[in-house]
């Protein structure tokens, strides 16, 4: 089954590049053809939220940003690995805080929670080469829900 690795070395315009890639994958059909359209959009949303978080909040200090995106189709799932050379942050701790802080009709603080809800599984770690690594799967067989207080 086809897999892909894409590399990005600037944050400016990264979101546009990302969505152009998704547009290409969707129109060409090969990479994500094993998934229904809703699952593809859910996957796209999860990737968007993570990359948006990188663009807005990640610390790269003196380093030039480097981001890689691996997409691995897997049956009725898609597995994704996003690595970057930022300083990283305690994702689980941040998720706990955001859950506790979520107010009715929140204006901010939903991005990581949305990623968490959209994914079947995720793991965030520092890899052997010192890069931050998020791995997650999105499944066609789930009905994910982010409980926002209304």
């Amino acid at each position, binding site marked *: 089954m086809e897999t892909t690795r894409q590399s990005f070395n600037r944050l400016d315009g990264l*979101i546009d590049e990302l*969505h152009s890639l998704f547009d290409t994958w969707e129109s060409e059909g090969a990479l994500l053809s094993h998934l229904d*359209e*809703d699952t593809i*959009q*859910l996957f*796209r*949303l999860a990737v*968007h*939220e993570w990359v*948006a978080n990188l*663009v*807005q909040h990640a610390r790269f200090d003196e380093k030039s940003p480097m981001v890689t995106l691996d997409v691995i189709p897997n049956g009725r799932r898609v597995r994704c690995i996003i690595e970057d050379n930022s300083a990283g942050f305690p994702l689980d701790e941040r998720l706990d805080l955001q859950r506790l802080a979520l107010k009715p*009709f*929140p*204006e*901010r603080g*939903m*991005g990581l*929670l*949305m990623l968490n*809800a*959209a994914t079947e599984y995720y793991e965030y770690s520092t890899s052997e080469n010192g890069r931050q690594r998020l791995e997650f799967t999105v499944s066609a067989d789930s009905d*994910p*829900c*982010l*409980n*926002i207080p*209304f």
Partner: protein
Amino acid sequence: MQATTMNFSIEPITHDSVVIRVGKALDFRNAADFKAATQEQVRSGIRNFILDFSETGILDSTGLGSIFSLYRQVSPMSGQVVFASVSRPVQVVVQLTRTYKVFRQFPTVEAARESMR
């Protein structure tokens, strides 16, 4: 007269209602502009907002947050925020966050307008 800001445009339909054609994206890059534009509309007396998502390929958490902000402003004044022509990427966000419980959806802008008459 139609006003355009970033990639969305605002079209008045009655003295207190507008259609906002959201355009290709409502996300962290333009949510602040959306919020500022809708706040200005509320200040000028607009209470009912039809959001036209027919062209929208990206609605992210920050974009949704800006819609919640608008809802918080107008709902105490008996105002409405409704969704029209919801594209599939937007529908996936609506389903994930269960916001269909809050925002009524219509197949077209015209149907949304009819509901407000």
